[in-house]
């Protein structure tokens, strides 16, 4: 497969002009070899402190019971489920980037796929915390699995909550496998580089990366198997991009609650998931790019493409918001109508308009080429989208529940300090994991980036559009990860 940009179509190289194979390895691998910059330690300290707050909040919750949260009649689902859906949604961009864009031969994904997949895994870990602690007695979590027991208890397979468990755990397993398989050649590069090192921990490094690289030698046969495995895992992950958040949306849409019981939920949730996930990838990538000097690999072209995806998905989400109102009006169902009027003009209207501003209005800035190639603008918008998508889930869950059929049971939900600490705590957990990831794991897929360099094309010379003839010798090493 030719990876050379086709000039006639206006394609440009995916990395900075003149990058060599060695430059790629050096740029990416050296991050794990140098001592960590001071800012990394500061960031890790802050993130780990928040993760500690998470531990304390969850410990207190388990000790005291779910009553320490603000959830109560009629709002039994609140921040916990909001956070769950938000985190799961964020994960989706990672899978979309790594699997769907891979199958569609979108070569630009190589700059961001590794970090996006890591983000997926960490986001799913954060997401899985919430259903686990929301049930109040996490030590009985095994009730959710079909295990033989002397209580004659069996999961209710008619319940979407059980579908959710299987959807999310499948997602986690497949994403982890996919990420790890993709890492093997790069781990071998790190191992090979560690072999030549001297120092106290060189041997530990070489052994650890060696064990993780599973004996990878970059042999032709290895590459054949690897590419096949990668393709199969990509094909397995692709339906998950659509199915996982569809199943999450069933938690709501299979109920009879006004505001939840709609058929638009699965596509609406999937679009929202991709939208929020890309925003989170963007936030993380902009930071990493600035801090670690990855501008040569993560170019403006990549950022612009991500912004275009956010514009599309943000507009899809905006369409869904409008369509919900139309269906509510068209249904003639007074409860349905009331829920939507209440969303926009009731006691939670502040949340609704925050959502609209962040999710629908802010990505529209990306119609302008100038704005979608401006780093400060895209950073601000990505943060807005993260906030807006959190509010979307909050609006769906809380405004539907707080006033449903019986006016006598109406209420107003307020979070407690424990709710807030739990949520901020998962952010801490997420960033702790992500910081450890960028410290110890090649955060960009070295082998894949090499595959999209112009000189990786066996016919690079025939194009005659660059004069670096010394690349011919390096082409032989194109697929060898160890430099």
């Amino acid at each position: 497969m030719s990876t050379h940009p086709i000039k006639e179509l206006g394609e440009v190289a995916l990395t900075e002009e003149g990058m060599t194979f060695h430059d790629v390895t050096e740029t990416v691998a050296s991050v794990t070899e140098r001592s960590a910059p001071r800012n990394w330690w500061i960031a890790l300290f802050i993130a780990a402190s928040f993760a500690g707050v998470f531990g304390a909040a969850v410990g207190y919750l388990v000790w005291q019971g779910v009553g320490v949260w603000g959830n109560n009649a009629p709002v039994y689902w609140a921040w916990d489920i909001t956070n769950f859906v938000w985190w799961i949604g964020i994960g989706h961009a990672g899978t979309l980037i790594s699997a769907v864009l891979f199958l569609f031969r979108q070569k630009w994904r190589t700059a961001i796929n590794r970090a996006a997949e890591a983000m997926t895994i960490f986001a799913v870990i954060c997401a899985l915390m919430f259903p686990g602690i929301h049930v109040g007695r996490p030590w009985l979590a095994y009730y959710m699995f079909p295990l033989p027991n002397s209580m004659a208890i069996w999961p209710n397979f008619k319940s979407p909550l059980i579908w959710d468990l299987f959807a999310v755990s499948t997602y986690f397993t497949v994403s982890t496998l996919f990420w790890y398989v993709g890492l093997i050649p790069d781990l071998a590069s790190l191992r090979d580089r560690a072999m030549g090192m001297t120092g106290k921990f060189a041997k530990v490094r070489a052994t650890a990366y060696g064990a993780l690289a599973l004996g990878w030698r970059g042999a032709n046969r290895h590459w054949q198997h690897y590419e096949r495995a990668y393709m199969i895992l990509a094909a397995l992950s692709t339906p998950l991009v659509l199915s996982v958040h569809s199943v999450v949306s069933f938690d709501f849409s299979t109920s009879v609650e006004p505001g939840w019981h709609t058929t638009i939920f699965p596509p609406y949730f999937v679009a929202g998931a991709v939208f929020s996930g890309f925003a989170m990838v963007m936030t993380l990538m902009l930071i990493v790019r600035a801090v670690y000097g990855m501008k040569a690999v993560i170019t403006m072209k990549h950022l612009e493409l991500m912004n275009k995806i956010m514009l599309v998905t943000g507009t899809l989400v905006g369409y869904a918001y409008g369509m919900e109102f139309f269906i509510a009006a068209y249904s003639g169902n007074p409860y349905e109508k009331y829920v939507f009027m209440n969303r926009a003009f009731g006691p939670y209207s502040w949340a609704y308009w925050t959502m609209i501003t962040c999710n629908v209005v802010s990505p529209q800035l990306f119609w302008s080429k100038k704005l979608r190639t401006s780093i400060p603008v895209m950073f601000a918008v990505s943060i807005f989208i993260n906030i807006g998508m959190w509010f979307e889930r909050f609006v769906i869950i809380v405004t539907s529940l707080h006033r449903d059929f019986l006016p006598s049971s109406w209420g107003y939900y307020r979070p407690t300090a424990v709710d807030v600490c739990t949520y901020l705590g998962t952010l801490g957990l997420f960033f702790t994991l992500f910081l450890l990831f960028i410290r110890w794991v090649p955060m960009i897929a070295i082998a894949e980036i090499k595959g999209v360099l112009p000189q990786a094309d066996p016919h690079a010379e025939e194009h005659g559009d660059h004069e670096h003839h010394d690349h011919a010798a390096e082409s032989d090493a194109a697929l060898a990860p160890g430099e």
Partner: protein
Amino acid sequence: MIAATAVILGVWYYASPKNLQVGYAPVQPVPYSHKLHAGTMGMDCRYCHANVERSAHAMIPPTQTCMGCHSVVKTESARLSPVRESWKTGEPVEWVKVHKLPEHSYFNHSVHVAVGVGCATCHGRIDQMEVVRLDKPIAMQWCLDCHRNPTANLRPKDQVTNMTWTPDQAPQGWKPPTVNPPVNCSGCHR
């Protein structure tokens, strides 16, 4: 995968009430023999557990019930000294509970006796036990097995305390009553 399966099956078998509970026969403060009283002498269960037909709990008889006979029978027996001690001081004998049910499950003896579930069906052949031992696993599965298919465990009401009753002793034309025991969660977890 094999290890996980082994753990699951191991817990399922070895941690089950069938394995852990059945056979529990604690030493009681008084070496009272059900085999002698209910078996050899043929006393009815309800002589001591008198309220079982009317109450959720089958009472443990008070010292007075014992002394009803033992103030004239075996008055000098050393084995009965804790009972006489209790009679004198008014402190009840501290019997050890054998059939323990979790606090979150609600069980009513009277309704089971009233529809004709025999004592022996759940407690086994008490009339043959020198020391009372747990005969059946008190697991939710075991409760549900009967709640889902109760007729096999029903008998004529006048035979409830009969320890040796078998279905072929049912009178001609007797049919088990139609009962609908609850199988929903709140039937027992109220």
